[in-house]
């Protein structure tokens, strides 16, 4: 049960974003740009960063939600699972391996990021903007994961819930739905 009363039909982050819409607005704008804006990293690659950080923060809701979106964007369900198990042996580019390792360091602490890890990313072709966005996506999910779990929001156990959420986010992105969320009641 959440630590404060939240809309019962909106588990996880959505109820918090509806509870406090003025703080939700810049968080939504930032997320929409980082995960869906014009970028040399594919949307699926950026969702892998979000998923890995949520996984290491042990945030069940965010991990399940972003796994679902990553799977939809990648068109298969294997890569995301393998990335969560072991970045080194996952079927992704050397550049993505290097960026995901930086993201995992950011999950621990900003100071945990080593110049060596940055060099490996640059040598495998990562641009400064890709490194910047990787660090900021990882940092943003350190916010989301703490917000979601720090308020003890509900994480549904039914996998169908996350498939529906993933589909909604794939179609609409991270901005607030123009007509709100009342259609999700009942």
């Amino acid at each position, binding site marked *: 049960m959440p*630590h404060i009363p939240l809309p019962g039909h909106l588990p996880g982050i959505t109820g918090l974003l509806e509870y406090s819409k003025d703080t939700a607005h810049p968080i939504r704008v930032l997320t929409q740009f980082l995960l869906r804006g014009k970028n040399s990293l594919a949307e699926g690659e950026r969702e892998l960063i979000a998923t890995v950080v949520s996984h290491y923060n042990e945030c069940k809701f965010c991990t399940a939600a972003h796994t679902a979106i990553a799977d939809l964007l990648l068109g298969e369900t294997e890569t995301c699972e393998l990335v969560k198990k072991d970045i080194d042996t996952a079927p992704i580019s050397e550049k993505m391996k290097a960026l995901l390792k930086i993201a995992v360091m950011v999950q621990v602490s900003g100071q945990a990021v080593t110049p060596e890890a940055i060099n490996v990313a640059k040598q495998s072709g990562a641009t*400064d903007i890709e490194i910047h966005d990787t660090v*900021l996506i990882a940092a943003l999910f350190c916010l989301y994961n703490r917000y979601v779990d720090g308020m003890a929001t509900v994480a549904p156990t039914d996998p169908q819930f996350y498939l529906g959420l993933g589909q909604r986010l794939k179609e609409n992105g991270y901005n607030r739905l123009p007509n709100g969320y009342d259609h999700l009641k009942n």
Partner: protein
Amino acid sequence: MAHITLPDESLPGIVGLFNFRPETAEPLQLLAETLLRGDSPLTSGERELIAAYVSHLNNCHFCHTSHASAAMAHLNCDLSLIDDIKNGFQQIEISPKLRALLHIAAKVQKSGREVQAEDIAAAKAVGAADKEIHDTVLIAAAFCMFNRYVDGLGTWAPKEHEAYREMGQRMAFTGYVRFSVPQD
């Protein structure tokens, strides 16, 4: 030197990063403005203390000292009291409610999963309202983002408190938004 090439290396901390990526600077600045200076049952001074305390726990010198300086500006305290934040608030007068909220913020800094029902009950017992608990958790979570952003990209930070005096006053009284942000 930062891990990436910034257009103006003389700008410290997050300021250099804002300059590098205006698209993310806009919402980040609006988030800081809303969290620290927007509507809240907590005063801006209390909220800046939470931000400075979490940044200290994350060992982020730039965020810690700049937000501590903003807190001192709001509270009309001397910059020498900044060190009291690191010492667990022995000199700065804080209410039992703020102390309970700072305890929750310290849990959030470790992990969201650390926050227990007892921590929330203890804050409510000394008068914390739902919105105050919400704002505390979100400020603490947001500074776990800002701190990682600033240190994860290896930005530089001035060492001495004095270098943060004007910055803190600007943060406290002028605010955080320098770019216009489109509405969604």
